[in-house]
């Protein structure tokens, strides 16, 4: 399918494909096994200017948009969903500053993030606040020229590795969701430490850990937007980043599909390659069709966002829902096509399946995505 990409987007695609094939694929299994953060690869991604694609040109980026980010994430995920999420999560942590940051905040943080000198992380989830983000317990109390943060975030991608964190905390608990605010917290700030590092089923090259705030004092200039804007910042950030998670799922699905097609041509049973059997052919055909449909949806939503369309909550949720469900199914089918070998760690099929699962869960579970879609549908009908 020709998606009429710009020259620049084709460059991003080809460059990321080269990095994925030559540099990531050969080491993906090792990072998956050891659960070590891929510093070398992240440095290479930074040197290749890929952290610049989601930063505006006036702050040291290439001025690309969500589609550029999606293309990069898709291609990197094709080789390793874990390494790709280290990259994509930095975009997630950067978006609040791009979307809502003051001129000073943008000038201070974006150039280094665009260069990949440091990476970013986004902190909202807490032990008791997952899908229900209004249950956040972390607080930020204003004292003179500072805010004092207290509380714990968990399941934070890039936690401990990132230098810049955008964190959601309650400035006024009596107001519920409208009492949340977004802050920038730098690594190394006194009172800001990292807790438990999670051991995960998949995306094991990425680091997921706790952020612990104990009387952590940050300058009041680190507030993003205004007090009480925390949830708007979060929702708008997720609208931008959900296509990125969808792109991660898309890349995992594409990688699993390619592996399944390749294997089916090599594996011989009953005297011929298993790709000659209609049972396998139909599976491959269904897998490929769903992957292409995911891609069409992801790119279309990304383009809507890049054109300045802000009312994309429903479409953004659809892309994330469809692409991640597809990734789960396609990677499961890939394991099936590889049979016993698919279940073994010698082949990457089972890793694709483990990596795919998280895309149905994070940045809003797929159940939450369905809520968003349904709510929007009902709202639209009510307006008629």
């Amino acid at each position, binding site marked *: 399918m020709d998606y009429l990409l710009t020259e620049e987007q084709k*460059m991003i695609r080809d460059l990321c494909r080269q990095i994925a094939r*030559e540099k990531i694929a050969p080491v993906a299994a090792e990072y998956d096994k050891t659960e070590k953060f891929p510093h070398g690869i992240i440095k290479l991604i930074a*040197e290749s*200017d890929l952290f*610049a694609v989601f930063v505006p040109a006036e702050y040291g980026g290439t001025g690309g948009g969500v589609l550029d980010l999606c293309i990069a994430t898709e291609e990197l995920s094709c080789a390793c969903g874990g390494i790709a999420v280290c990259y994509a999560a930095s975009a997630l942590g950067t978006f609040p500053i791009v979307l809502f940051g003051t001129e000073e905040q943008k000038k201070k943080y974006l150039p280094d993030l665009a260069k990949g000198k440091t990476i970013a992380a986004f902190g909202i989830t807490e032990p008791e606040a997952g899908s229900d983000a209004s249950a956040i317990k972390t607080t930020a109390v204003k004292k003179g020229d500072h805010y004092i943060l207290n509380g714990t975030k968990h399941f934070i991608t890039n936690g401990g590795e990132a230098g810049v964190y955008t964190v959601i905390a309650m400035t006024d608990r009596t107001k519920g969701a409208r009492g949340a605010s977004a802050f920038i917290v730098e690594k190394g700030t006194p009172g800001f430490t990292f807790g438990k590092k999670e051991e995960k089923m998949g995306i094991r090259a990425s680091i997921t850990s706790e952020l612990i705030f104990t009387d952590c004092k940050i300058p009041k200039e680190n507030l993003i937007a205004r007090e009480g804007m925390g949830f708007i910042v979060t929702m708008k950030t997720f609208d931008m980043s959900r296509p990125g998670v969808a792109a991660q799922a898309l890349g995992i699905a594409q990688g699993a599909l390619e592996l399944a097609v390749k294997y089916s041509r090599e594996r011989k049973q009953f005297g011929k390659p298993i790709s000659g059997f209609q049972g396998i052919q139909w599976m491959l055909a269904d897998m490929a069709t769903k992957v292409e449909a995911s891609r069409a949806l992801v790119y279309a939503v990304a383009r809507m966002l890049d054109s300045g369309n802000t009312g994309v909550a429903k479409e953004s949720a659809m892309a994330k829902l469809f692409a991640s469900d597809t990734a789960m199914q396609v990677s499961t089918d890939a394991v099936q096509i590889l049979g016993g070998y698919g279940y073994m760690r010698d082949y990457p099929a089972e890793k694709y399946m483990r990596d795919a699962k998280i895309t149905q869960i994070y940045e809003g579970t797929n159940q939450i995505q369905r809520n968003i879609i349904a709510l929007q549908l009902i709202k639209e009908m009510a307006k008629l």
Partner: protein
Amino acid sequence: MNIIVCIKQVPETTEVRINPETNTLMREGVKSIINPFDMYAIEEGVRIKEKSGGKVTVLTMGPPQAETALREALSLGADEAILLSDRAFAGSDTWATSYTLACAIRKIKDYDLIVCGKQASDGDTAQVGPGIATHLDIPQVTYVKKIEEIKDKTVRVERMTEEGYEIIESGLPVLFTVVKEINSPRMPALRGLMRAKSAKIIHWTHKDLEANAENLGLGGSPTQVVKIFTPLPRPSGEMLEGDVEVIARKLADILNKEI
């Protein structure tokens, strides 16, 4: 330090097909790439520039589509690219090629260092680099595996040999051909690719060079390719078995018969 890197665009495969009538390479349908050994030359040129300043000019002779190879070199950090393309250059052997490249380098004039890959993956002659140095009458060091030190007027390098390596010091300007042990070439970066896409490539024909027309192209090439073919696979040898005396006798018999 002004550096000139000479590169060649070659077919990606090592199994090149040959036109039996013209004895030339058949390039149709085969993707073209920068000669892999030249990638090390580009990387080394860019590294020297990054360390000691100056600029890297990348030079190639070839058909118009060789521009792609030059743009790739620009994306990897070269500053300027020159394409020598002209029907008058067609059919050049290694002598005429190195003569033409040397004429272009004379025109560039201001250079301290010329870097080439040790050989091209299609022709495998390893003659063009040394040929350029000879035409320019400057020193050359082939098979360089490490540049130890660059000073204002001299440079010290390690040159790979079959037994180990030699340390050679030379005055400037000098031409090096480099082996793959010298570095590991970088990946292009997005900004480099963008810059390379719109960069201006300088085109020179024979009219731009002070060259003796008799030395150019097929007419200027002393090498005549009479026949070119893929050698037949060698038949497997005969294994002699038994103890030493038996083998020795059998061997002597065979040799007697053959002679």
